[in-house]
């Protein structure tokens, strides 16, 4: 049940423009399009329009000169994996990468040339073997992998020493950062694409887990397993681990900030010594299997700081957690842990609620630069110098045109954060005034009413 898309690398929302166009677009499904491109030797990629269901085959991949990638909401680009990878699977017969030097550094001879070495492996005779320019290839499926004739008169041919994909990128820790190209499990089964739900339907859709690099059908570790794995194309085997080389030396997680008295983000880097959950359950030691047996041992997860029985987050949950010593409660969060303050240092102060603030701070409490009040991008403001002419809405300075009781604010230049409060505090000795509404004047219309099922049941009885 393998999909023909398995041979392709997908770039979502990208349209590739090449120097010459394929004659026409045709209506196909993505998979039919992939099958057709696979059948045609000259086809290296295709654009698929999700709206019109049109398929446009391409002579090029985005690695070729003269091509341009454009953002496009409805078009995905699929490129043959063989042209995108600089490592080999098996003996590298399908290798279509761009290495053109041998392992000793000699420049390769063009396959079309017979100087300095005459040979019979010409592109004209073997168009299916991908003998492009002077790139290393393995037209005879030699056990040493891709090779080439060299431009050195004294060396007819030499191996290129291209790494195998399972050796090329090694695993750090339990491979949660792995983004290599292995697409086979340890038993040799081909992996199912993460963006497909057959033969196995699953929850790891790439759109949902954007930060997990669930590309194509490569082995990945989105769930904090022992090592990278994938769903397989074998309907009888749902998922298997992949066999990928572990890196030598000390393992540590990339770009992980270690914190102790508090935790940041979801607390994967928390290394404090709290050993109780927010429900006051005592944590079980990570190196023990009682009362709860588990795989989160310090040996299995050397980079996750699984010391003693401290709250930790080895699997990327919402917050640090632990197994508890209570037999009836397997795991519990340590939500009571303090979050580290991630606000930047305030640069100025304001009095009252800041409506009279006319200072020059122009960034939010998280450090995002403010959008100019008279600009319409990235946010279309409702509060402008025209709507609030007396509010001092100059440049992109923080202001409080609407009398917000939490202080000056601004629209931000981050498209995902419309507005936020600014990096300004209340001045020493000035308390924030509290806004109060007269409760008698507040009316509720359609909220806060419910059908009391218990009472209606009693009535019906």
């Amino acid at each position, binding site marked *: 049940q393998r999909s023909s898309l398995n041979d392709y690398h997908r770039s979502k929302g990208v349209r590739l423009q090449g120097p010459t166009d394929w004659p026409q677009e045709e209506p196909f499904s993505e998979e039919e399009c992939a099958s057709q491109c696979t059948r045609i030797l000259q086809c290296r990629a295709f654009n698929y329009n999700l709206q019109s269901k049109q398929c446009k085959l391409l002579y090029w991949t985005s690695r070729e000169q003269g091509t341009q990638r454009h953002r496009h909401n409805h078009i995905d680009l699929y490129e043959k994996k063989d042209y995108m990878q600089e490592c080999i699977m098996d003996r590298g017969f399908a290798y279509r990468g761009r290495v053109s030097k041998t392992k000793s550094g000699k420049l390769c001879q063009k396959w079309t040339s017979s100087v300095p070495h005459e040979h019979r492996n010409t592109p004209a005779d073997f168009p299916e073997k991908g003998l492009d320019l002077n790139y290393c290839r393995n037209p005879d499926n030699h056990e040493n992998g891709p090779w080439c004739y060299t431009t050195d008169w004294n060396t007819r041919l030499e191996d290129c020493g291209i790494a195998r994909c399972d050796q090329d990128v090694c695993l750090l820790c339990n491979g949660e950062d792995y983004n290599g190209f292995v697409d086979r499990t340890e038993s040799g089964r081909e992996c199912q694409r993460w963006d497909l739900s057959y033969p196995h339907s699953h*929850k790891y*859709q790439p*759109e*949902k*887990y*954007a*930060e997990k690099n669930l590309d194509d059908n490569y082995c990945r570790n989105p769930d904090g397993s022992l090592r990278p794995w994938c769903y397989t194309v074998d309907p009888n085997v749902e998922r298997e681990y992949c066999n990928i080389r572990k890196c030598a030396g000390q393992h540590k997680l990339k770009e992980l900030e270690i914190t102790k008295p508090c935790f940041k*983000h*979801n*607390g994967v880097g928390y290394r404090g010594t709290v050993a109780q*959950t*927010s*429900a*006051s359950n005592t944590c079980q030691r990570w190196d023990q299997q009682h009362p709860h047996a588990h795989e989160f041992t310090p040996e299995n997860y050397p980079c996750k700081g699984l010391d003693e029985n401290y709250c930790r987050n080895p699997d990327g*949950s*919402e*917050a640090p957690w632990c197994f508890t010593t209570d037999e*009836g*409660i397997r795991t*519990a*969060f340590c*939500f*009571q842990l303090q*979050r580290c303050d991630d*606000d930047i240092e305030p640069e100025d102060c304001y009095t009252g609620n800041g409506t009279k603030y006319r200072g020059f701070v122009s960034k939010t*409490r*998280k450090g995002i630069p403010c959008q100019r009040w008279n600009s319409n991008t990235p946010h279309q403001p*409702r509060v402008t110098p025209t709507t609030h002419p007396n509010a001092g809405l100059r440049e992109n300075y923080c202001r409080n045109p*609407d009398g*917000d*009781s*939490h*202080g000056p604010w601004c629209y931000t230049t*981050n498209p*995902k*954060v*419309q*507005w936020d*409060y600014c990096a300004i505090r209340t001045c020493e000795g000035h308390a924030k005034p*509290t*806004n*109060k*509404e*007269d*409760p008698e*004047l*507040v009316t*509720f219309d*359609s*909220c*806060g*009413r*419910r*059908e*009391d*099922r*218990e009472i209606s049941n009693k009535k019906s009885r």
Partner: protein
Amino acid sequence: MIGGRPGNSPWTVSLRNREGTHFCGGSLVSRNWIISTKQCFSSCYTEHRGYEAWMGTVLKNPMPNDPEKQAIPIQNVVCGPKGSNLIMLELERPATLNARVALICLPPQGYIVPEATTCEIAGWGETQGTGDDNVLNILSVPVMSNKKCNQHYRSHVPETEMCAGTLERGAGACERDYGGPLACFTHECWVLEGVIIPGRGCGRARQPGIFVRVAVFVDWIKKVMAL
């Protein structure tokens, strides 16, 4: 919920992570917006794609084809003012209001709920053997003044928070109830006066529950929905 009992709270929503597991509660304040606590979320600025709000059912694990259940993806989160511990979650599409899904009212800005007002908290959190973990549980709790509450918390409860609960052991919010509502009945309507935040332990003696005092942040809530 320690010491609660099964009940109906149509504005209480279950927040689900990308695995579909319930991890915190929330309150529906408009068809597009939910209020919860920031402590349930890893960050205000990361992707929350795949997270959902479930409503319309009192069961923690309803059948996948439950016709009453509304599972709506969260498309955006907005963190509250400094010190508020609040987060607002924008829904990808509006919730459909019916007998099982309803909005809770917001209190007047700055309103202080009188001491001894009986309110209720709701959630699908742990019961620690005091009830059924698989259904929404509700517990009635009397409001306690901050002055009295601070006698038990060494003056650590600021004016932006409020207390409710009894001093006896065995009743209160617990793990996975956080973010849910403290709702008080005023003028014939249920009003969201507090948001459940994590304390130390669940249902401990002489430790009333602590909640974010929503009335302090109503202007922010309305502004987020309006802008």
